[in-house]
């Protein structure tokens, strides 16, 4: 008899405080499993954000700090520049990353900081009781758009992966979801690839994970999964937006593919003097 699935050592024994059916538990587990698989639990440093994930340092069994709202990429920058051999990741929601922390995430990507961002997008501010987020879909009902998001008044959703992939500094940007077994495996592969990108010092990596928020969407967990597949995947198509051709060997060593250092097509008007 072989154990094919057991709770990972990368998670602490503390039960998650998340609502029933919330995808955060799955995404926490994938991050923790990736750390364990790569034997990085002792050296990794995570940066928790503000939002439902404020408590993630209680659950993931690596060193973690919490940043002010939206500032996780800036804090991670400081940590990574000092602890160059540690795996440094941030774990952020969409209200944190796409609204309050827009400046930090854009400039972290533009500087090609060698950090990994796990971006959980559930189209709503979850923790503060379901206000409209920058990622809220057009027509979606939230507590601050009770008649549905009206583009003429409240604007359009931000597709974070698409716009960050346009920056020369971004090495790897992929959007995944965790609605079923196959997608969960794809999400785990994406997180592993982001880990490899950072390990090989290729630059900024971001994995956007589409998630449900059954409580604030006002849906049963299963109905919320269906809603995500029907609506969110249309607004936020799954796929790799940058770094799809980057390949690694079995040991996680960089083999080939376009990276910011070589594929950078920015105009260079002079030699950099060091």
């Amino acid at each position, binding site marked *: 008899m072989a154990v094919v699935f057991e*709770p990972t050592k990368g998670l602490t024994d503390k039960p998650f405080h998340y609502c029933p059916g919330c995808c955060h538990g799955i995404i926490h587990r994938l991050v923790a499993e990736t750390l364990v698989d790569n034997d990085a639990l002792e050296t990794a440093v995570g940066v928790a954000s503000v939002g439902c994930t404020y408590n993630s340092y209680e659950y993931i069994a690596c060193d973690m700090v919490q940043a002010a709202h939206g500032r996780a990429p800036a804090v991670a920058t400081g940590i990574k520049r000092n602890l160059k051999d540690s795996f440094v990741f941030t774990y952020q929601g969409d209200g944190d990353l796409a609204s309050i922390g827009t400046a930090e995430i854009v400039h972290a990507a533009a500087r090609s900081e060698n950090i990994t961002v796990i971006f959980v997008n559930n189209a709503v501010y979850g923790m503060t009781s379901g206000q409209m987020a920058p990622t809220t879909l057009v027509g979606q009902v939230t507590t601050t758009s009770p008649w549905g998001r009206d583009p003429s008044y409240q604007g359009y959703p931000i597709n974070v992966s698409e716009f960050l992939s346009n920056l020369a500094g971004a090495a790897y940007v992929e959007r995944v979801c965790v609605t079923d077994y196959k997608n969960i495996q794809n999400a785990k592969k994406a997180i592993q690839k982001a880990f490899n990108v950072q390990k090989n010092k290729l630059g900024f990596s971001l994995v956007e994970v589409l998630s449900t928020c059954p409580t604030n969407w006002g849906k049963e967990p299963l109905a919320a999964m269906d809603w995500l597949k029907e609506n969110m995947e249309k607004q936020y198509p799954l796929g790799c937006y940058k770094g799809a051709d980057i390949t690694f060997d079995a040991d996680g060593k960089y083999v080939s593919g376009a990276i910011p250092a070589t594929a950078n097509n920015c105009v260079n008007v002079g030699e950099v003097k060091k």
Partner: protein
Amino acid sequence: MAKGKLTFNENLCKGCGLCVAACPKKILELDKTRLNAKGYHPATCVNPDECIGCAFCATQCPDVVITVERF
């Protein structure tokens, strides 16, 4: 003949039902006759003999309730 065995850490279960939907053999149910320590109806396997040990349920579970063994 069962090929897999499930162990539930029932007091972590929040009764979301994602495992019930993920099971290809449709042998998981929320036990409406019991409550766990959190006050939810915990997920349980109603027909253990049919389990194939695919671990779809455990992979989908957001609260890491299920441990899967395969023969």
